[in-house]
């Protein structure tokens, strides 16, 4: 049934982003795994670290590591057994018959050709479940790494935060330096149950000839909170993604923080869509984007309110540093039969304020330092509340980038 629907959608173009022709290939997963991440090749370790994945697993409650088609490693730290489950999606589907109720329920299998390809030629992905009431202080980490140039990952992930649980996940999608081109198709379905709190931070790290099409759906039940941080600091050929969070339960909350550095010939089309359906739901979306070289950046955002006491705010801000780069901000507010709902948006694309630069220079900062400080702060305000463990790493990366951008 799913396969049939998928087959019919194989030619269906996506609503946004350049259309890609990706061959339907058979997965060819090799059957091996590593006992410890210590045994990983140094190249892989370095590449994964760039996307926030620590192979020494310090300060992490559990790990999932997939290279190309193969799940190399999955583990929950001793202290967190009984609180977290991590396994490949295949293993999870085999183990839990109930998982069918979560599979393709939140992202339609026939959404477009990319979801169809994931169903028909999927090669992995993870299942992460945080058990009811669990308080998982240390982040769970996952890494989806491509090491085969010209290859592709077509993964399906399901994340279930059970009732009253509390956790954060850091996930990196990355490639080794040898990979110059390829595709990443990733379907992610999130279920945030009653009273659960989930922070999901994704760091993308691609190459100049790489195409990326994530497809993400999130359902948040009553009193649940979902926070999504997305960070793209490396060039990509094209990426298009428009995750949708449905705040189904009363008092559910969602927040999307996005920071994007568009450079070289990157074609970036990113958005977030929050549906405020339950009573007293709250949605917030903040994005910060820089454009240099010939990059084209599209920032979309949509809030849909169907409940009278829903409140939402959308904020997109961008700066361009090259005459050949482009930026579009498209904020949308939809109110459907809820006249008391309160939705606002702010969108701005503009340069670094010369007045502010002069002010900082009068305090002894060089022009370069002043502009960098402003750019770095501009990006950082886009991801307030990032897991502490990532903050230092990111601050370093942003400082370097802020210098490079202008």
């Amino acid at each position, binding site marked *: 049934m799913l396969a049939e629907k998928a087959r019919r959608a194989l030619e269906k173009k996506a609503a946004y982003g350049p259309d890609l022709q990706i061959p339907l290939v058979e997965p060819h997963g090799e059957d091996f795994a590593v006992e410890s991440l210590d045994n990983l090749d140094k190249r892989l370790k370095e590449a994964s670290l760039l996307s926030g994945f620590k192979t020494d697993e310090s300060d992490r409650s559990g790990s999932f590591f997939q290279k190309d088609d193969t799940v190399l490693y999955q583990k929950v730290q001793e202290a967190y057994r009984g609180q977290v489950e991590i396994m490949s999606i295949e293993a999870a589907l085999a183990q839990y018959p109930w998982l069918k109720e979560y599979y393709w329920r939140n992202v339609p299998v026939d959404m477009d050709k990319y979801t169809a390809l994931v169903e028909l030629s999927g090669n992995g992905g993870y299942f992460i479940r945080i058990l009811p009431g669990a308080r998982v202080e240390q982040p769970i980490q996952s890494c989806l790494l491509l090491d085969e140039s010209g290859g592709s990952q077509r993964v399906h992930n399901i994340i279930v935060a059970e009732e009253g649980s509390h956790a954060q996940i850091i996930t990196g999608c990355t490639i080794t330096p040898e990979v110059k081109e390829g595709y990443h198709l990733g379907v992610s379905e999130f279920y945030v149950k009653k009273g659960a709190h989930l922070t999901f931070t994704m760091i993308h790290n691609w190459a100049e000839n790489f195409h990326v099409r994530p497809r993400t759906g999130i359902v948040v039940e009553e009193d649940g909170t979902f926070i999504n941080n997305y960070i793209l600091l490396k060039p990509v050929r094209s990426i298009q993604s428009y995750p949708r969070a449905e705040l189904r339960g009363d008092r559910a909350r969602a927040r999307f923080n996005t920071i994007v550095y568009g450079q070289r010939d990157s074609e970036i089309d990113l958005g977030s869509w929050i549906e405020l359906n339950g009573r007293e739901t709250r949605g917030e979306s903040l994005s910060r984007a820089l454009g240099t070289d010939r990059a084209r950046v599209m920032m979309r955002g949509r809030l849909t309110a169907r409940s009278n006491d829903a409140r939402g705010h959308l904020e997109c801000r961008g700066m361009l540093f090259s005459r050949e780069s482009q930026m579009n901000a498209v904020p949308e507010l939809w109110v459907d039969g809820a006249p008391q709902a309160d939705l606002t948006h702010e969108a701005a694309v503009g340069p670094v304020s010369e007045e502010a630069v*002069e002010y900082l220079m009068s305090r002894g900062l060089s*022009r370069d330092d002043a502009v960098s400080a402003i750019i770095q702060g501009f990006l950082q305000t886009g991801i307030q509340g990032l897991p502490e463990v990532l903050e230092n790493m990111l601050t370093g990366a942003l400082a370097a980038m802020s210098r490079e951008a202008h």
Partner: protein
Amino acid sequence: MICRDANLLIGDVVMLKIHNLTVSTGGKEILKDISLEIPRGETHILLGPNGSGKTTLLKAIMGMGSFQTSGSIMLDGEEISGLGIDERARRGVGLALQRSPAIPELTLGGLLKIMGQEYGSGAMAEKIDSLNCRYLLNRGVNVNFSGGEMKRSEMLQLLVQEPKLVLVDEPESGVDLENIVVIGEALRRLLKPSREKEKERAGLVITHTGHILDYLNADKGHVLLHGKIVCSGNPRDLFEEIGRHGFEGCANCPELQLKGGQSC
């Protein structure tokens, strides 16, 4: 001559020497042939009606704004008119603007960290507390600051910067009495007389009300009118005269011009 030679060892006796400074924007002259000297250890007051060019003069000394300038600005014997804003700051010019831009991208604490080696030290903490700025450290610089908060933050930045030429634009404007005390104390500290001549600073302060004179030992006042310094003299006498006859009266007063002399 002997006295002058002795002073050479510690730099110039004159901290700021402006000669024939003309500043224009869009073909319009805002300041015309300004000449002004402020010796080490002295604080001068700049008076004048709105639009007379007071703020432009301070910005021109700092090198800010998109102005065309000609003439000379010497700081401690060195020509600085060709230097960038940051180079002037590093040579010891410090400016507190009347209205500073809001910078949401940078917190006040973050700025102090970039400015001062001493961040986190007791000396910095003392400065922060003396201006009651601790609660502002995690806020964007000047973002939704009240009048008093903005002035206190400006004064704090100057205390950290430790400039040898202190330029302040209307320290008392938009500030309640309680804050004037705090700001006045900070100004007093910035311009504190020193026993060591080479540590003596100089100041140029714009004021409308003269309230700030209670905190400053102002040595001289200058009246700026239509882009020109029209008279100079004892600051309190000047205030009195202006109170009586207004700025235009001051412009036509030969007596004050004589009293102040043409030192500028």
